[in-house]
Each structure stands twice: as C-alpha cells, then as structure tokens.
C-alpha cells in the first residue's frame, strides 16, 4: 500500500518522538522500529529521516550526541528532551482526536472489502 506523502510527513514527527520516548536511539534503529510498528506499511525513504531528526534537534525536542556503535564506529544517538516530551503529548492528543473521528465514521460506513487492504 502506498501511503500519501503528506500523511507520511505529518506522522513522522510524532512517530520519531514516540520511538525516542521508548529510549535513546539512532537513525537506522529508528527506521527499523517504524517498519516494525507499521508491519512494513510505512516505508520511509531512509535518507529522509535525517533532515527530520535535525529539524527536531534544532527545535530542541531532541538532543544528539556522538557515541560508539557495537563495532566501535561513530554513531549519532538521539535523546528526547523535556520539551520533546511535552510536544509528544500534544501530538498524541491531536492524533487521538483525528483517530477518534475517523474510527466513528469508518464504523458508520460499509466495511472495507478485505482484499483491498
């Protein structure tokens, strides 16, 4: 399934923040986690994650530090800040409102044929 670009862009921030709320992480692990959470439905172009991370860092929602990977290479780790936590809570409320409304309307409509999923 191809998810609309705008929808991907809009969901990127809450997803990244929420994943970092589980614990500090780095780029590749974040992408893997997104795939895992969405059963592979959300396929980001991997490289696009990094500008998003840098934007969140500039906004001080997350903090970066250079560490080492298991093999001893340089690796940039990201950590959620308290501002990021507040932002995440905000996102969560907004998305829940959207989700709630959509659920209601889906229930009213005729069920989607299984094959189309």
């Amino acid at each position, binding site marked *: 399934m191809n998810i609309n670009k705008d929808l991907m862009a809009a969901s990127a921030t809450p997803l990244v923040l929420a994943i970092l709320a589980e614990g500090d992480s780095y*780029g*590749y692990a974040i992408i893997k986690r997104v795939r895992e959470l969405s059963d592979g439905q959300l396929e980001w*172009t991997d*490289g*696009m994650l990094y*500008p998003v991370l840098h934007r969140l860092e500039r906004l*001080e929602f997350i903090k970066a530090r250079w560490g080492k990977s298991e093999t001893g290479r340089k690796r*940039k780790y990201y950590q959620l800040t308290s501002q990021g936590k507040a932002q995440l809570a905000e996102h969560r409320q907004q998305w829940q409102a959207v989700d709630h409304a959509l659920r209601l309307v889906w229930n009213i409509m005729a069920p989607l044929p299984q094959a189309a999923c």
Partner: protein
Amino acid sequence: MADTLIDIEAMIADWRRFLGQRRVLAPEDIDELEDHLRGQVAELQSRGLSEDEAFLVAIRRLGKIDAISREFALEHTDRLWKHLVMAGQDAAGAGFNREMVVALLLAVGAAVSLKFWDITGLFPLQPDQELPLFYLVNAPFFVLPWLCGYFFWKRGLSNGHLLKLVIPFLVAALVANAYPFARAGNTQVLSILHMPIALWLVVGLAYAGERWASVNGRMDFVRFTGEQFIYYLLIAIGGWIFIGLTFILFSSIGMNPERLAFTWVLPCGMNGAFIVAAWLVESKQGVIENIAPVLTRVFTPLFTLLLAGFLVTKLVTGQGISMEREVLIVYDIVLVLVLGLLLYSLSARDVEAPPNLFDKLQVMLVVFALLSDLIALVAIAGRISEFGLSPNRVAALGENLILLVNLAWSAVLYFRFAWGRGALAPLVSWQTGYLPVYAAWAAVVVVVFPPLFSFQ
C-alpha cells in the same frame, strides 16, 4: 573474503566522496548516513545477500541523493546560503551576465543620482571647498534606494512589497530635507548619523523579502551586511590606489587631476561601488565566506584584550570618560563592533557543533562590553542629572540602554550555551529579533528628536 572486505570499504569511500561534493552535507551528516548504510548492509547480509548486493540495496533504500540533499538544504538554510544548491542549478551561464548588467546599471544610476545635483549646478562640488551639507544629509538616498531596487528585482518581490520599501524612503527624505534645522546643529548632525541606520532596515526588508519574519532570513541579512562591508572596504582600498595613480600619472605631464579625482571618480566610485559590492556578495559568496570567519577569529581575542585593558585602566586610574560626541560615537562603535563580531561568528557557526573555547572567549568579550557600556551609561546619566537633557545626551542614553539590554541578555544566553546548559538557537533568535530595535531607535532620533528639541 579479504577481497570483498576491501571492496565494500572502497565502495563506501567512493560513496562518501560523492556525497562530499554536495556541500550542503556536512562531514558529520555523512558520518551519520554512513552509519545508517553500514547498519542496513549488515542486516541485508545477515539475510543472505552478498556484500555488493547488500550495498546496492542499502544505497537504494537511502534514497536519491539529490532529493536528500534538497531536504538537508531546506533544513539547514545556513549551508544553503553558502552553496546555493537550489538556485544555482538553472542559472549557470546566462543568468550571471544579466544580473551583472542590472547591477552595473543600478550602480551607474546611483552615481548619476548624486552627480545630477553637481552637474545641474544646484549643489556644485568643488575640490577645494567644503562639501555642501546637502550631500551629507542625502547620502543614503543616493545609494540605498538603488540597492533596494536591486533586491526587489533579484528576489522578484510583489508590488505590495514595493510600497513597504518606497514609503520609508519618501518619509525619510522628507524629514531630512524639510525639517527647519538649525544649520549643522546637534539635531541635524544626529539625524545625519542615524538616518543610514534606520534605512538599513528597509534594505533588510528588500533583501530578505518574505523571509524577513524568519530567523534564517534575518541571519542571512546579517551575513550580507558583514560581507558587503568587507567587499566595500576592499574596493575602497583599490579605489584609493586608483586615485593615487591617477594623480601621479597626470601630474607627471603637468596636469592637475584634482577636479577629475574629487568631483568625478571619488563620488561616483563611492556610490557605484556600494551596489557592485552588494552584487559581488550575492554572486561570489564563496570567496568572502572563507575570510569572514577568519576575521572574527582574529579580532575577537583582540577586542577582548582591548576592552579588558580599558576596564582595568579605568578602574586603576579612576579616570572619568570624556563626553564629547565623537568619543561617545567611538564608544558606541566599539560596542556595536563587539555585537557584530558576536553576530558574525554566530552566523558563520555550525549551530549543531558543541561549545568550544572560542565560545567562552566570546562570552568574556560580551561581559567586558557590558561593563564598558555600564560605565558609559553611568557617565551619561551623571551628565544628564548635572546639565539636563540635550539631544546628544538623550540619543547616547538611548543607544547605550539598547546595547545594554542586548548585551546583558546575550551574555546570559551565551553563558548558558558555552557552559553546556542551553542551546545556541535562543541566542541566535534573540539577536536577530533585536535588529529592528536599533532601526526603531534611529528612526526616533531622526523623526522625533528634531521637533522635540526645536531643531537646535
């Protein structure tokens, strides 16, 4: 196995070199992308792909480098400014020349708008006589509107924007020329000194266009200001050498080139060079970009020493400061230069780099400037309570208060950053947000002061 190991390292090295050409990608960004690539390759290999297959798939997943660079450019406009990846693509050859023609025409326009008053005999320029006051009063109007015109053309601004640029100039020209000043009195001299400061903000509006509201837009304007200053200085040095050579050559054949040099070459050159300098900044950014950070690095320690020495001497000797207008101006220039050094090093800085020793030095510089400003303020306040209000004293008081507020809060924000308790971004947005305050105060001095002090 050893073979393929070298292979992938070579491929990654090649890939890094390729990314390195995209100058929006800093080496740290490439490190981060490389870590990603290696993670992906390792995982694909563990699923049974060969090394080079895994490498190819991983590269593909990373996405098109063009698109990624563009995203990086959007996020890091400071780097974009340096390398113009987006704008430079379509205008490689033809655009350059057209812009040069426009810039040169505007430069000629600036020169003509000054020379007009001389040629028509309204305000004749005489090499052996004092410069008519008219030229000092109107100097900004011979240059800055043309500069705004250049940016208006270059940025393709809307007509609504045009009004925002034209109206301030009209008001300013009216105020400068129609106020019944006492000739070369204090309020007129203050007006002449503050007019360029107030109007420079209008240039900023033209320069940044719609981006004036954003921190990045204003920061770009700060960069532009610093670089134009450097370019102008370089051209001016060349200009003086040129005039000197003109003298020597013509004198050698028994002619006196005074008239040519001081009523044509100098005024036209001064005005035209201003526009040319702006065009050079816009089209040849790479050249100065390497000089400017070096200059800030050189002068920050020097200014820190200067102010430290000044403060210590002042404390030891207990000497009061002189209240001549010239001295106060130099005082303010030093403080503004400190802020300029601060702003400039901020604008050339990688916002994500951690604080280093240089930042601590700069905090010291700001603190010293703050103390110097306090000393000046105390002296000015003393003078006011002793001799009452005068236009010069009130203007100086206002300027030093504005600088004090800026320096004090900058010191706090910078201190937090340099000692790892905060980010750099608040300092940058504080500084860029403060820019209109200077212009607003200058506008007050230009517009409100003369009637307030009955044009004396």
